[in-house]
């Protein structure tokens, strides 16, 4: 395997000098290049393949958002990191669309190294480069036709309540993805990571969430889906929402935010591939993957690029694997698997995934669930109906 290459872009030479000196310890492991403009960065990327690009946001001429957007189109395999001293909401939106990670200035070399090292690694063993290319091209997840309009209208109502906004946001796969991506970046400052949707909405504030929705709206409202694509989008969406409801009831309080996030993002790879297809001629929608890699691998790689916590990434990665949780607790993975299998028995089932009544029975007999006086299939049926209303609304 060749030496990983990292490219740093900042219009301030002294920032680059400082990084070069403080990252000197990495000179044996990475090949580092430092340039002062977006144009130079693009020239370097065109010459040789890189693993990670770390860019400032505000630069004269081509700014960071522009550069990273171009990189996502020309070199989707390059992981995109923003290192910026800007903290205002507009920057949040630009980052959420163009970049994978956000680092605040000032950041200590330790955090810079940690993020770069994580991004140099990939999640897929077999088709790492191809999975990264497919996942890396994604800047924003598609929304259901009409959904963005409804969400914008709802959030822009003059007297919108926080609870309404949170409820609406927690049914939108694309928005949840963006919110979690931001909450796991340094964007929210030094606060502990906020993981539940309402925590993120509260921390970012309604105006930023509104602006995020508006940005998504702009990206997706003009896209017309083929009937087949739209059907896939609706199935995945409904399945995610229903699983989210069920897993909310199953997971332990500590795991709940992770489990709900994992449930909502379980088919993020499919969304990502649909988003990619609309760029060019929409190909025949495949059942389980695109461009020779599976949806699941793409989704997991995407969550990894966004830096979501390991329990979420693992739960999504292992959704279709038989789960034998320890008697001590279901864990995030077990809860998501159990909820997924339950939903497979309802109208919100995902036809591309199988069922396993035997495993489901074993999971429901788990001490964490068996002791509770809940009719799980009935709960799943109710969740499925709610999800259907949400998709059809």
């Amino acid at each position, binding site marked *: 395997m060749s030496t990983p290459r990292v490219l740093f872009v900042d219009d*301030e030479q002294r920032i680059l000098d*400082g*990084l070069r*000196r403080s990252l000197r310890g990495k000179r044996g492991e990475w090949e580092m290049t430092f340039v002062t403009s977006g144009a130079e960065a693009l020239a370097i990327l065109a010459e040789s393949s890189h693993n990670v690009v770390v860019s400032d946001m*505000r630069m*004269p001429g081509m700014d960071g958002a522009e550069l990273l957007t171009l990189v996502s189109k020309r070199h989707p395999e390059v992981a995109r990191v923003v290192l910026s*001293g800007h903290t205002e909401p507009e920057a949040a939106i630009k980052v959420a669309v163009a970049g994978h990670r956000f680092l*605040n200035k000032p950041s*200590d070399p330790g955090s810079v190294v940690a993020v770069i090292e994580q991004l140099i690694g990939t999640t897929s063993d077999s088709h790492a480069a191809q999975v990264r290319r497919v996942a890396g091209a994604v800047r924003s997840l598609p929304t259901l036709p009409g959904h963005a309009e409804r969400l914008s209208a709802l959030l822009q109502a003059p007297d919108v309540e926080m609870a309404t906004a949170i409820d609406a946001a927690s049914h939108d796969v694309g928005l949840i993805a963006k919110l979690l991506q931001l909450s796991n970046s340094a964007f929210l400052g030094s606060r502990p990571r906020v993981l539940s949707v309402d925590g993120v909405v509260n921390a970012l504030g309604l105006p930023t969430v509104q602006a995020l929705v508006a940005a998504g709206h702009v990206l997706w409202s003009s896209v017309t889906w083929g009937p087949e694509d739209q059907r896939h989008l609706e199935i995945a969406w409904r399945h995610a929402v229903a699983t989210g409801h069920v897993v909310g009831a199953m997971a332990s309080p500590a795991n709940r935010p992770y489990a709900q996030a994992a449930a909502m993002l379980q088919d993020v790879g499919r969304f990502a591939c649909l988003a990619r297809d609309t760029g060019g001629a929409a190909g025949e929608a495949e059942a389980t993957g695109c461009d020779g890699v599976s949806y699941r691998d793409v989704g997991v790689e995407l969550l990894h690029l966004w830096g979501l916590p390991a329990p979420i990434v693992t739960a999504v990665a292992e959704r279709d694997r038989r789960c034998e949780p320890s008697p001590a607790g279901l864990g995030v993975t077990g809860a998501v698997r159990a909820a997924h299998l339950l939903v497979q028995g309802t109208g919100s089932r995902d036809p591309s995934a199988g069922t396993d009544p035997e495993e489901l029975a074993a999971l429901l007999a788990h001490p964490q669930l068996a002791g509770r006086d809940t009719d799980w299939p009935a709960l799943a049926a109710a969740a499925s109906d709610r999800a259907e209303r949400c998709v059809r609304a």
Partner: protein
Amino acid sequence: MELAAGCAGAPYAGIRLVCGGASHSGASHGFDPATPPPVAEQIDRTLRAGALVEAPDVPGLSLYAGVPIRNSRGDDLGVLWIADDRPRPPLAPHVGRLLAVLAEQVALRASHRDMLIERRTALRMTSAVVFHATVEGTVTEISSSWTTLTGRSAETTVGLPLAELVHAHGGETIGAVLAGCTPGTVRRVDCTVTTLDGTAVPAELALSCLDRDGQIGCHVLGVVTDLRERQRREVELRHDQKLESLGRLSAGIAHEINTPIQFVGDNTRFLAEACQEMLDLVLAYRECMDSAQGEIPWEERLARATAAEAEADVDYLAAEVPVAVAQSLQGIERVASLVRAMKSFSFKESNDRTYADLNEALETTLTVARSEIKYVADVVLDLGELPEVLCHLGDLNQVFLNLLVNAADALHEKGERGEIRVTTRTEGAFAVVSVADNGPGIPEELHQTIFEPFFTTKEVGKGTGQGLALARAVVVDKHGGTIELHSAPGKGTEFVLRLPVDGKLVAAG
């Protein structure tokens, strides 16, 4: 009416107005002019339509005629009528013309009455004090708002000299102000009015010389306006504007601080490592020199020292350490100068004027606004020799900031990197500050309106349109200076401020 009756030789005459008023004259001989018969009413309406209408066929009357009363706009006000119940010859033709002239007089009287009523109502409604005085300054009449403002009654005030009621600012006497008052112009001076309870109220006195009774400029009409409310609003507006620009700048300032902190931190960590490596090297040298270890062959020492130097990468350190130190110091100086600039930018607001170095103030403001400017423009400073200027520095800083940020926004709009040129020079008793950009320019038709409050071309959230209005208020009203705008589409924009070096000469107004 008698005149109307007389010229027509008719015993009855009257005026009936559309709005309901009626009056009449003439003794009653069976015909009651106060309650004309319904037929007469009908004739009234007919009369109003034409110039002179004779209606001989009214029962009991040999003559019933009239002319319409119209105001200058041609609105129908009513009818001037005459009537006769005796046998009589037809009306002579000149009677119609005479009646028309009389009707015109009636119309004038009516409009005069309306004006008086309007004037009285306006005086009741306004809080400004309106008074009349002789050219010598003796108050002859004063509106009731005087009592509301000062607590003094109008009766005790009439007859007093104006100089006892208001005191002009800036050492000018009321007498001099009155003397400088010429017909057709309005004199305005800032003054103080003292109320009955001793409060000094800041006010504006406006005086105008009027003609009366055929004598030119023989009496004075004056208005005293309480300025407290206006001043309070101005303070509020300035405060709002300051908060607005600070809010906008704060994100940029945070960035300006975060950037040097990032590289100073990186460099310091590198210097710590470098220092450790140097120490390790020194220890290696010391070991070579340590005689306690016995004789070490020279080659061995050389080999050890070279190995230690290679380990420490001495050449790299020798090249990088001085640069890292220099850049760190630059970064620290950048943060320090920014903090200093912010401190002096938000110079504490006081009502007193102080002598200040405007060149320094401009440099301070540029430092604060750097984050707004540096991505769109290069700044060229051409600062000439300036004497210290007596001014409200906090307000002027705000004006400089507004002009700089506007210039930056104009260049941002243009989409390519531009230049902002800041020039200062002295012109006689004035300090001249010019802020020019080579942006898209301002179309001629907007040159006046851009100084109006709430005028803005910026998108919602970027500006409230107070910037230039505030600039004018501060420079012109508060400092007695001027603002000129030179701009044309495609030619860039230049704002030229002229500030009197010794401050506003208040009384010279």
